[in-house]
């Protein structure tokens, strides 16, 4: 057999920027152009008292302008940092655009961060302003503000419960807008001046990465970085003005910011804000987005909810489900191989779609979808295949904060699950000798804020070191193996990539997330977080008594259930790669906990520390 030589470098097609030619190559310039061009079109929607309310580009522009001018009036100078801590809402975007237009730099803070984390980001970024959603976020900064010397003003979006609160440092968002309006009447030229001072190479935003090791780092992303990344992505997956997107993942994360703040500046797609995280499924169904980006955890959740729905179904419905998804999977096999399904199968697919698949998509709100993206964490190929079989055009995107979001993606005629596709136009990917993935392109960031040492370690000879290891297949698609530092080397010296095993585990409807352990140990073990809904349902159906979540994870029958799932996964791996023992995490983790990222991934390091005793127990006695 001829040995297939793998490639060491892969490049995306030539990249031609449309924006660069048009002199609008900064975020504020592009933003203002859109406000003028699209003034009466809907920019975003927000639900108020149960009704979706449109916000036009004119309003978006006006509010952003007054926000920016208000900040200038309060002393914002070019390059000053403005922190925003809020759930996703229109004010977030007004603040973001207003800050940048005024020449400032936006720093998003996770609304779930604790007061001490808030203090760290404010101090590290040297923020002058703190724009907070409400009372809760206000309390965080009040608790630590005596240790944040450079903080000038605190601005509160929602003053509910604060009517009688007086503090010289605190004003409401409405007051800020009013200041901006007065300022505009006096100095109407300043706003345009500041917009035109912005340059592509200027720092636009700081993104603090959740940092699984050490304190968070502030990635500096320029206007040029953002717009390049937006255009590169749009060249492969073009968006249109009638597209609908849902804004629900934290906006301080690069992915959601790209999808639901920056991309709309290019395409004019409409941004829909969910009411809160708990209402995502309902809001999904109401909005029926045409483009949808989500992290694997969300895709896993939707999958689980469909499985759960089917368990409640009648026998006939179950049969229909099995039949229809079977047809869907067969057709998806053909199209993934680049061929057309045979005529009879296409006919059956129509029927299957009309009777079943269509309704399944409706349940999760994907009935109008054009394409979906999964990213920000590895996902099981089987899960992507499931959605593909439903007729959902789902693609995996790979990238990181340090390259302003996306770097490689499945191209429309070249979707190959298990790979993360090919480099975007203008991007280059190279595999270093030790297997690390390196990349280059106009979307690679400026470096870490006030940390030249980390920057030097990360960008070497113009190549961004991703910290991921992987390879390139013979067609030039990238395959990610794992995080470089997560690779497990067992006591026997075998290299194991835990994420492959973890992804297979997470594919089980009963398992939400898992952390595989075994570095320097004799065998592999895992800590598993169960899917509470599905496991509770299982317990009820099988009369397994339990009271609380903790008691559920201790129930023998539940442990047996998970054992079966683990056994299933073990069969797919070599002997050294099998999980010999596991324990269930007996507390329900929420995004407030440090063991989990705001995008809902288990953090290996924290899990390893917090459950050290449980882990040691698994290695205490020989098998």
């Amino acid at each position, binding site marked *: 057999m001829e040995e297939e030589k793998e490639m060491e470098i892969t490049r995306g097609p030539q990249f031609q920027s449309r924006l660069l030619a048009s002199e609008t190559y900064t975020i504020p310039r592009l933003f203002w152009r859109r406000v003028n061009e699209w003034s009466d079109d809907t920019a975003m929607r927000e639900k108020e008292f149960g009704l979706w309310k449109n916000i036009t580009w004119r309003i978006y522009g006006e509010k952003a302008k007054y926000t920016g001018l208000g900040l200038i009036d309060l002393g914002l100078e070019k390059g000053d940092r403005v922190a925003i801590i809020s759930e996703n809402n229109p004010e977030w975007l007004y603040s973001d655009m207003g800050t940048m237009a005024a020449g400032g730099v936006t720093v998003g803070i996770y609304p779930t961060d604790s007061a001490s984390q808030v203090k760290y980001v404010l101090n590290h970024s040297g923020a002058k302003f703190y724009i907070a959603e*409400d*009372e*809760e976020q*206000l*309390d965080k900064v*009040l*608790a630590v503000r005596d240790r944040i010397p450079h903080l000038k003003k605190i601005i509160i979006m929602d003053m*509910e*419960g604060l009517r009688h*609160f007086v503090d010289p440092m605190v004003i409401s968002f409405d007051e800020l807008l009013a200041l901006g309006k007065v300022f505009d009447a006096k100095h109407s030229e300043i706003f345009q001046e500041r917009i035109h001072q912005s340059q592509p190479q200027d720092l636009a935003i700081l993104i603090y990465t959740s940092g699984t090791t050490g304190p968070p780092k502030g990635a500096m992303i320029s206007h040029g970085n953002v717009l390049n990344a937006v255009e590169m992505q749009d060249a492969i997956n073009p968006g249109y003005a009638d597209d609908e997107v849902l804004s629900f993942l934290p906006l301080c994360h690069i992915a959601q910011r790209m999808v639901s703040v920056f991309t709309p500046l290019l395409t004019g797609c409409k941004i829909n804000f969910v009411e809160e995280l708990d209402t995502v499924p309902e809001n999904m169904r109401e909005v029926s987005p045409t483009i949808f980006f989500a992290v694997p955890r969300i895709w896993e959740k939707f999958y689980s909810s469909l499985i759960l729905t089917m368990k409640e179904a009648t026998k006939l419905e179950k049969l229909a489900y099995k039949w229809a998804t079977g047809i869907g999977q067969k057709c998806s096999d053909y199209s993934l191989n680049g061929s057309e399904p045979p005529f009879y199968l296409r006919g059956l697919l129509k029927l299957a779609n009309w009777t079943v698949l269509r309704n399944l998509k409706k349940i999760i709100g994907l009935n109008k979808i054009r394409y979906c993206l999964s990213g920000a964490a590895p996902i099981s190929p089987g899960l992507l295949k499931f959605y593909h079989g439903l007729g959902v055009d789902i693609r995996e995107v790979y990238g990181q904060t340090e390259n302003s979001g996306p770097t490689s993606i499945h191209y429309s005629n070249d979707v190959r699950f298990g790979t993360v596709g090919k480099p975007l136009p203008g991007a280059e990917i190279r595999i270093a000798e030790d297997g690390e993935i390196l990349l280059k392109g106009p979307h690679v960031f400026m470096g870490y804020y006030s940390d030249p040492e980390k920057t030097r370690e990360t960008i070497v000879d113009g190549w961004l070191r991703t910290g991921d290891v992987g390879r390139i297949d013979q067609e030039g698609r990238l395959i990610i193996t794992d995080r470089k530092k997560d690779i497990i080397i067992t006591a026997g010296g075998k290299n194991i990539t835990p994420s492959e095993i973890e992804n297979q585990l997470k594919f089980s409807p009963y398992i939400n997330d898992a952390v595989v352990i075994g570095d320097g140990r004799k065998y592999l073990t895992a800590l598993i977080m169960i899917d509470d809904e599905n496991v*509770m349902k299982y*317990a*009820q159906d099988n*009369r*397994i*008594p*339990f*009271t*609380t*979540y*903790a*008691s559920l994870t201790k129930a023998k029958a539940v442990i047996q259930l998970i054992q079966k799932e683990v056994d299933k996964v073990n069969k797919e791996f070599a002997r050294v790669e099998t999980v010999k023992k596991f324990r269930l995490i007996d*507390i*329900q983790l*929420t995004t*407030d906990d440090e063991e989990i990222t705001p995008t809902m991934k288990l953090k290996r390091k924290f899990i390893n520390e917090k459950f050290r005793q449980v882990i040691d127990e698994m290695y205490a006695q020989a098998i």
Partner: protein
Amino acid sequence: MTLLKVRNIETYYGPILAVKGVSFDVQDGAIVTMLGANGAGKTTILKTISGVMDPEKGTIDFMGRRIEGMPPASIVRLGISQVPEGREVFYDLTVQENLMMGAYIRNDRRGVQDDLRLVYDYFPILEKRSNQYSGDMSGGEQQMIVIARALMARPKLMLLDEPSLGLSPLLVKEIYEIIVRINQEQKTTILLVEQNAPMALSVAGHGFVLELGRIVMDDTCEALRENEDVKEFYLGIKEESVRGTRRWKRKKKWR
């Protein structure tokens, strides 16, 4: 000894699955309390135990006998009496007649007379008013009537549904003192549903917290009183913020 064993009960309240697989034990002679917001499923659980509602799934074991789905009257005969929420007295009957209704299932005359005496000892005010119509009584007195009426059946297990609802703090205290005495002196086991969490946690030994039809906490009342979530959401004790006031609630974790 375990008096009552509830296992995986699921009960519909109309079209809504109000109790989603609840399991718990009640030990003989204990006071056990069940906390939860409106609609958490507390009353539905009591009604499922007393047979007023039938569970869709699950089993209830009382002194070694399966009682789920049995008619309420038979369950009363086995020794479970429910004191329903809202002081449901027979308005047109006198206090004494009301109490005698509680002994309807019994035919040991002597015993009934003794128990009437006993009940009057616990609630002297009821003896004074024994010939008045219960409809004319105050809320607190009506609450006493329903508890006393339940006692007249000589239950092993008494299910109390919000005895403090709508009563003045003083009356609440009085009624609870009597409940504790009944538990201690008559060895009556009590399963108590209460919105008044401070009161319930101070008299009971063990407690559950119910949310959306599921148990989220199961511990001794001592531990529950110290739990952060119970403190904030049921006892109204909040950590003070820098501003001195705080309206927002943190996320419940239940651990």
